[in-house]
């Protein structure tokens, strides 16, 4: 079963995730959402660790651009995602397994779509060799 990790900012994106859950929206993969104070708080180490622990793909979901409560959070997130992508290419996993998205609290329908997007990327690349089976 494909496993996807989503780091979600606790403001807009987390609300969107909750709403998606309440409305019974279904996901194409086994998704674990991790709440963070701000997308900018996610570190390169966390992203790499997720893959070492077996994630096939990772999303980082921040608030809409220009709408970050901490002002620079999205900028920070984009820099770290960029760096982590570079490393993913260097170790041969593939940078497209990781992506940064921006979602507002009133856009729950986007959450399963983003997960589906990442799932299709995993289908192209193949599972993470470190994926935990079963």
């Amino acid at each position, binding site marked *: 079963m494909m496993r996807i990790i989503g780091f979600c900012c606790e403001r807009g994106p987390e609300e969107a995730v909750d709403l998606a859950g309440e409305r019974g929206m279904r996901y194409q993969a086994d998704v674990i959402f991790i709440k963070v104070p701000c997308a900018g708080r996610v*570190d*390169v*180490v966390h992203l*790499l*660790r997720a*893959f*070492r622990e077996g994630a096939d793909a990772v999303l980082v979901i921040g608030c809409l651009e220009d709408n970050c409560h901490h002002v620079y959070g999205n900028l920070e997130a984009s820099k770290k995602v960029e*760096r982590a992508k570079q*490393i993913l290419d*260097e*170790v*041969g*996993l593939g940078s497209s397994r990781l992506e940064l998205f921006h979602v507002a609290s009133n856009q729950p329908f986007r959450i399963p779509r983003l997960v589906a997007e990442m799932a299709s990327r995993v289908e192209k690349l193949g599972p993470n*060799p*470190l994926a935990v089976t079963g």
Partner: protein
Amino acid sequence: MIIGEQKRLEEIAGMLEGQQRILVAGCRSCVAICLAGGEKEVAVLAESLRLLSSLKGKGWEIEEATVERQCEKEWVAELSARIEGKGSVLSLACGVGAQTIQAMYPQVRVLPGLNTSNMGAPEEAGVFVERCGGCGDCVLHLTGGICPIARCAKSLLNGPCGGSQGGKCEVSPETPCAWEEIHRSLERLGRLDLLEEPIPPKNWLPSRDGGPRKMVRKEAVLTEEQKRSKGGKP
């Protein structure tokens, strides 16, 4: 500050081939500022190596440690417990730090994770430029505060050369011509007169050309007896 850049992951992985217990050692000084070998960079590299190790079955056990300054024995001494039992240390400090660890722990193999480059400064976020030539005989007072040794590609003392155009060096359109900058600076300072007299051939003895350098501050040097009387470790 000393500026360096991490070696590519591929090159580092090559050095670690066949190794097992590895300590990645960082430094909080210069290399932290140029985002090459500080605590954060150590963490990211360690995690990258762990990921690579899992993917390729390298069998690496990676630990991390960062000291205040890797070039000083007092701080490198603090690493002894962490180095115990390790097969190698991947130093992310500059070449000085890496050599200090090796000198203090001769039994463990020290590998350089960094390509140490030059003495320079941060120009803006993420951009570090060479500034000082380390020539041992500073002439900044003659050149309006701009180092001709480091910042002129030909280290001219009577520049510019004929390749200077549009304020840029012939070596690269991104490199400012140091001698154009020197002229402008002396113009602002009202000291263009300093450019009238030819500067004679430089004495390169105080630079690296004269051999590896050792600088002694006699007033700080202690004899064995003085060291004992101060009660510190010999």
